[in-house]
Structures are given as C-alpha cells and as structure tokens.
C-alpha cells in the first residue's frame, strides 16, 4: 500500500534532470589527477590527488551514480586513484592496469556519514587512533548499513565550547585510516547563565582581536622578520578553532525535548528561546553553528538559514503541541522538510537518548537504529523532503555538520574514496549494500559476509 508513494518518489528522482552533474561529468573527461571540477566545499580539496601519481587505480563503471550533492549521473564512471576520487563522469579514460568494478544496473553513492554513532571500532577518546579496533565486527555491521564515517564521542553541553569528538571511519583492518579527524566538533549549551554568557561574549571578542593581530603579524612578517607572533589570550583556543573553521560548534538547546522519564516531555513543546540564543551566539561568532535537535526550528527556519547555521534533526522525534498555543509549539515529521526548504543544511539521525540508539548490532532492536540509517531519512521524506535531499542529509550535509565536507560526503574529484555500491535506490528500504569502499579499499562485500549474504529476497 506504500507502493504508490515509493513509486512516485522513484519516478520523481528519475525524471528530475541533472544538467549540472552531467556537465561536471564531461568536464572531468580524461581528467585523471587534474581534479577537474572543484568540490562544492569551501575548503580546497586535499592535495594528495594532484601531487604524485597514484599507484593503484580502481574504476566503478556503468552505475547509476548519486553524487551526494543531490545530483545523479546515470551510467557514469567513478575513477579512484589510491584513496581519493580522481574523476566522476562519462567517457573517463581509464589508466592502464585499472581494476574495474562493474556496477551496471547498480547504484553508486557516497558512504553514509552519521552525526551520531557508537561502537564500530571507535577508540576511547583522544587520541582516538591509539585505541581504535580496526577488526571490530561492528565495523562490518556498520558497512552493511552503508555507514562509512561517524562521529564518535559526540559533544555534550557546557558553559564553554568543549569536547574531544572524532570523525571515525569504518576502515576495516587499517589503523591509520580509522580516524579521519579529531576535534572537528565542539559542544556548548545555547543558553548560558548570565555570568557565563558575558564571559563567552568577552572571549569571542578577544579571539577576534587576536585573529586581527595575527593577520597584521603575517602582513608585517614579510617586511620585518623579527616581528613576534601575537599570543592567543587564555581560554580562547577553542573559540579560535571555531572562528577559523577548524571546529564546528554544536549548541545543545536543552528542554522541550522528549524525556521518557518525565512523563513524555519537559518544556512546553517549544525551544524557540534557546534557538534565539543560539542565533545570537552565531551572530557574535560570525560563523554558523549547529543546532542539535531543535524542536521549533521549523518556526524560524529563515532566521537559522540567514546565519549559515545547520541543524541536526531526528524526524521521528515527535513532540505534541501545547494545546494553548498549537500553531507555534510541537514538532512533527514535516519539521525536517521545512528546514530543508529554507535552505538549511540538515543531518538526519535516529533518536539518541537515554537508551542509546545510534549503534549497530544484532542484539535485538533497542539502540540498534544505525542498522537502518536510511529509514530515518525516509521519515523526513514522509514529511515532505525530496528523496535526493534526503540522501544529502546522510552524506554531504552530514559531512558539513561534522566539519569534514572537504574530505567526505560526496563523490567529487579530490575527496576520499568512500563509496557504496547498492542493489537499488539508496533510500529504499529493500536496498542492500553490495560493496563498500573506504579510502579506496574494498572493505565490505555482501557475498562474503556471513550475515547479510544469507538473506534471500
């Protein structure tokens, strides 16, 4: 009975013309190593792709390629050199000795990026790489679900930006590849006590002054080599990371959320005040922030979009409206779509809370929602989001929210080769991952896995 809806979604996808992507494809023709079209990300592509010739080439040919940017190229080739994507498009010349993976009739898309996650080989805090477990069976489980990266140790609230989260890759069997980046995400409460708020404002001011001083110094240095670099004021280190774009600030909005032990909910079905505080912080910083599961974002989506801020939502977290003010409270499936329509980059996650949720495994259902990341995106589709945007919430936009979109999240030249080959539409619940590639290495093959290869359909 859901078939008509799904069919129409698929039809929508197939019909939507994708000219920009096509153009990108042609641009890249034979562009091995040249990094043809630059990634959509602001950051420059990692340099490895251009300097030095890749040792090993792999090409995924003939697949229906979803770039992760919302675009799709049919029958395209993805050329991989070592661990990076060299080119995506049609008529790409394959260098000699290229390993070809035929994906005709299959779907190719970027590996999913999860903004929450647990287990899957993650280590025990900074430095994450020294305690990671590259042979954790959960890695295979995560790859089977399409996850190739996730944020381990997601930050919590606090009165100042803090956290030691790391973006972990599911790089089976390779310690060096397990941690993509540390410290990309810091957490703080949106609403601070008065004194703390004042302190934070002051620190931001000092940090900005320091940045100006640093710029002056760099300008001066060329003339006067004896010039001394300015010293960062104490306490501003993390803020400087945020200002420089090295870290994303996740703001916890508190209150209003679902609390299973609080009789269903605390708060009045609205966290508008907290969002407004967060917008103030974003304005002070001059950089976008990330709102963690805002309840009322749909009410002020334009304001959020105007500050370049981003949003993490779990569309199936529904909060009933306050009967006294039903038009301005509560939240439902449509929230994600409304934010998306306002142009806010959005990551979709499963409910994470008291009982966990963002994990993989075979031990029952509770806390295993990362087994089906696309189902959470499907809730957003149900609420009105387009299917191609829904894929973005699991790929490029999620990578933006983690501050690593220069490395992962889309199939673009220069990015890490984290790629899935699927046996159907990425958003379809029947779709299985057939091959998962992380950093250019095949790390999962359905046919060789004891669990999913046994499911006959």
């Amino acid at each position, binding site marked *: 009975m859901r078939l008509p809806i799904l069919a129409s979604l698929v039809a929508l996808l197939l019909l939507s013309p994708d000219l920009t992507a096509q153009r990108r494809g042609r641009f890249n023709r034979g562009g091995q190593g040249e990094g043809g079209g630059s990634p959509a990300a602001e950051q420059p592509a990692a340099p490895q792709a251009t300097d030095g010739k890749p040792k090993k080439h792999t090409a995924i040919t003939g697949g229906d390629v979803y770039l992760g940017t919302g675009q799709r190229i049919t029958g395209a080739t993805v050329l991989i050199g070592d661990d990076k994507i060299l080119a995506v498009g049609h008529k790409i010349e394959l260098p000699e000795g290229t390993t070809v993976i035929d994906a005709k009739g299959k779907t190719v898309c970027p590996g999913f990026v999860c903004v929450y996650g647990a287990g899957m*080989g993650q280590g025990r805090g900074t430095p994450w790489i020294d305690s990671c477990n590259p042979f954790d069976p959960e890695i295979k489980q995560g790859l089977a679900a399409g996850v190739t990266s996730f944020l381990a140790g997601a930050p919590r609230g606090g009165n100042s930006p803090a956290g030691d989260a790391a973006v972990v890759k599911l790089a089976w069997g390779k310690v060096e590849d397990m941690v993509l980046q540390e410290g990309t995400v810091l957490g703080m409460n949106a609403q601070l006590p008065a004194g703390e708020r004042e302190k934070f404002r002051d620190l931001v001011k000092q940090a900005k002054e320091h940045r100006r001083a640093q710029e002056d110094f760099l300008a001066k240095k060329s003339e006067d080599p004896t010039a001394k670099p300015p010293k960062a004021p104490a306490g501003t280190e993390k803020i400087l990371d945020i200002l420089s774009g090295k870290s994303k600030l996740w703001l916890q909005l508190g209150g209003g959320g679902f609390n299973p032990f609080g009789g269903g909910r605390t708060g009045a079905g609205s966290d508008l005040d907290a969002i407004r505080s967060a917008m103030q912080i974003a304005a002070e910083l001059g950089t976008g922030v990330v709102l963690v599961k805002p309840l009322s974002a749909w009410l002020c989506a334009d304001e959020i979009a105007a500050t370049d801020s981003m949003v993490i939502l779990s569309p199936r977290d529904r909060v009933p409206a306050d009967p006294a003010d039903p038009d301005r409270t509560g939240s439902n499936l449509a929230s994600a779509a409304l934010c998306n329509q306002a142009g806010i980059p959005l990551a979709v996650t499963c409910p994470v809370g008291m009982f*966990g949720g963002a994990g993989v495994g075979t031990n029952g259902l509770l806390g295993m929602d990362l087994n089906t990341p696309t189902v959470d995106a499907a809730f957003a589709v149900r609420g009105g989001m387009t299917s191609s945007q829904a894929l973005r919430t699991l790929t490029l936009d999620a990578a933006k929210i983690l501050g690593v979109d220069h490395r992962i999240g889309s199939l673009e030249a220069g990015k890490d080769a984290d790629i899935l080959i699927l046996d159907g539409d990425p958003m379809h619940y029947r779709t299985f991952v057939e091959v998962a590639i992380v950093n250019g290495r095949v790390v999962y093959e359905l046919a060789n896995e004891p669990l999913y290869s046994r499911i006959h359909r």
Partner: protein
Amino acid sequence: MLRTNPRRNRCFALRAAVLALGLCAAGLRAQDVRPIAFTNARILTISGAPIERGTLVVRNGKIVAVGADVAAPAGARIVDCEGGTLMPGLVSAHSRAGLVSPPPTFSVEAGPRRGGRRGQGTPPPDSGARGVQNSAATKVAERLDPKQEVFGELLRAGITTLALTPPGDGFPGFGAVLKPDGTTLEALVVDDDAFVFLGMQRDARVKKALKDGFEAANKAVAARKAPKEAPKPEAKAADGSKPGGEAKPAEAPKPSDPQPPPEPPKPEPPKPDQPKPEQPKPEQPKPQEPPKADDKKPEGAPTADKAQGPKPEDKKDPNIEVLADLIEGKHKAIVQLNSAADLLHWLHAGGKDLTFSRTICTESFDTQAGAFDLVIDELKAMKAAVLVPPDLSVRPRSRYVVNPVRSLHDAGIEVGFVLGDSPARVRTLFFRLMEQVRAGLPRDVALRGVTLVPSKALGLESQCGTLEAGKKANLLLFSSDPLDPTSELRSVWLEGRKIESDTQAR
C-alpha cells in the same frame, strides 16, 4: 639465551650446606648415577622422523644417544617402555602460573572487548590507569613464591620447561625460565633474564610507553656505538665486575623506580643505526651488560650503594639499557599481542622498525578484535614465530569455525602453542592438539609447537625441545602415540629423574 648467572654465589657457606644436603639426598636415592636406557620405545625425536623401535640413553641428566640400533650401555638401568612412545617434555614459553600479585589480568574467556559497544556516549573503561611505566630491567623471578603446588602440577602434566611472563603492559620486565621441580628460588629459577617481555594493548598510554622506550633505547645504542673517551669503559668494567664477585637476586623492588622517566623523545638523528641493530659493536668489549650491574646490588648494602649516589655512568636508566641490549641482539623478546587489532597497533606504534629477535604470542583468539588469521601478511613481514593457543576460533557473529593456527602454518609462519597457566588445561592439551590435527594442522607441526618452537622462543633450542644427543633428558613417556585419544601419559622425566604422572588412570 641462557647465560651463566654470576650472582649465584652469594652466600658461599649457605650454598655449600645446601649442596651437601642435596648430595646426601642424592646419595639416599642412590640410583641416579647410573645411565638410564629407555628401550623398546617408539621415539618422537621432533628433530627428525620418528624412530619406530629404538633406545634412548641418558647419562647425568642428558641424552647421550638416540636411535634404532643404539645398545643400552653396560650397567645401565633399563626402563622398558613396552612399546610406549617417548617424546620431549613440553616447553611452555608463556605462562603466568604462580604469579599472585599483581593478579594476572588475562583470561581466555573474559578477554577485554575493546571498542565494543558500551551504550551511547559511555566510553569503555580506560586501561591506562594500570601502570605503563618502563620497568624492563625488573625480573619476574624476583617476585616469585617458589613453594607453590602449581609448578609441580604442571610438571606432572608434562611441562618440563616453564617460562614465566611478568604481568603488565609495556615493559613489565624479564621473564624467567623455571625448572618446575624446585621448591627454592635457586632450584626453581634456571634463568631469571631469559627474555624481555613486551606487552601490547591498543591504548594510548601503552603505545606511548613503547614508542618512548624504544626511541630512548635507539639513542642509547647510538651513544654506545659512538667512540668514547678512555676512562669511561674502564669505570664501567670495574662496575660490571662487581656483581661477578658477590651478588644476589635483588629483591629490591624495581631499581628503576627512583630513576627519572626516560627522556622525552627528542628529535634524534633519524636512526642511522636502524638498518642493522643486531650487530653488537666489536670495539670496546662490552662490559657484560652494564645495566645488569645496576639491578644486582650487592646484598650487604643495597641502601649504602644507593646512598653513594649515582656515579656518573650510573645515570643511565637501566630499563633503557636493557632495551638497548635487546636492540643490539643480546636478549630475546616475547611480544604479547592479544588480537589482530593489537598487532596492527604494535606496527603503528613503531613495531615495524623493530627487527630484534622476538617471538609473538597471543593468549586467545579474540573474535571481537580479530584473530591472527586476519593479519597473516603483516605477520609474515615480521618474520617471527608465533605462539598461539591450540584452539579453533569462529568468524565473529557466525558459527563459521576457522582454524587460525592452520592458516598461519599454511602461510609459512612458524607456529607454536601457548599451553596455558592452569594444570587442568595442560592435562587436556593433547586433546586440543588432536583437534588441531583433525582441523588440518600437520601432526609434526602440532608436536613441534609444544616442544621445539617454544624452546626456540626462549633461546633454549640447544637444551630442550627435541630428543637428540646432548640435550636435557626431559622426556614424556606415553602408553601409545600422544595424539591417540586412548594414550596415557605414564611418566615424566625431568633431566633423567622420574616424576610420576598424575594423569594416569588408576
């Protein structure tokens, strides 16, 4: 590498008394002086093909002849094996039997499941709290209680050479080789610095300790190779000769403790000495391990010695000196890597560049962090023998049984076995070996894995592990082939002395 231990002769009178007592005891037992001839035996020499019906002659605790056509010497005590099978005594190269404190942190069942899911947001417990300070110069033998039933039980179960491993991560110290019939420290401990033990965990602090330790050691090696002014080596020689005179097993807890921690890794000359670290410099006759000199304080006045303050050449951290000796090839090492993940971390922590003589051992196949069959290429590249439990494993989250031992052997890696700490487990060892053979491991590899391979790991291949002339007469006499399920271990012979087996049905 067993070296004659210079600190044996501490209290001469006492030793003489003990010796006299021992001689009396031997005299009472009386027969021991005669050679022994084991006749009518099927002999698994391990070093070569089995001898279907042969004789093995033992004199003074050593094998003097083995063969099908060897005749029992005149006057020999004849042990008629009645067609039973003789094989070398078991060699256990990795055991923590009898080490009570600190308690061993390892067990087969409850292996730490690192990186597993622990619920949202709750990081697994940090193991870094356990000390990972460098105490490479301490000796496990020093904290040993010799009067423990377990050694005798292991002996009666067939272990005639028992190596004890210090517990802990990083550089917990020297392992010891025991002759398990002793009841005093002196009789029990054959070699108290048989091998340097390195314990690996995937843990930031352990990895840092390893990196720092070996960086400092490489520096020390470079410093040794650099030509020095004349007086220094002499002073060292004088110092080194001291323990030769009168030394004792320093039960001083960790001489390293008061030492400052190894210098932080400095940008050293990028290891010019790395290519061939094994080769000890012929110039300046190494005054037999200066570090040793450090931890063997003269018995009389250990405090006085300390009070003298560090002599200029004593500034060296003995722990680092031990590691430098290791790099120079003067010690052997056993590296414990409990899973495939730990092995990758070992390489990641700098283990790639370490090429000294070492054996890798693992206590269990950890399906949550990968059994060794997942890292066969890496293991091959390390060119080291591997000691593994004689067990089968499963692919995680499945019922697919795999045999990592066989995979390793098929890949050309020398495999031996970790026999276990408990006598109960050792008593059933041969059943596990049978399972291994059924699962495809060649018979001779299975038997070599409990004898010759571990003895090589300890550097004792010239003394035990096979039945050849010149080796210790450590023998197991089975009623039939040891891999036959009906076979019984009839007796254990430790250096020509019979020890009744306790596994025989009565």
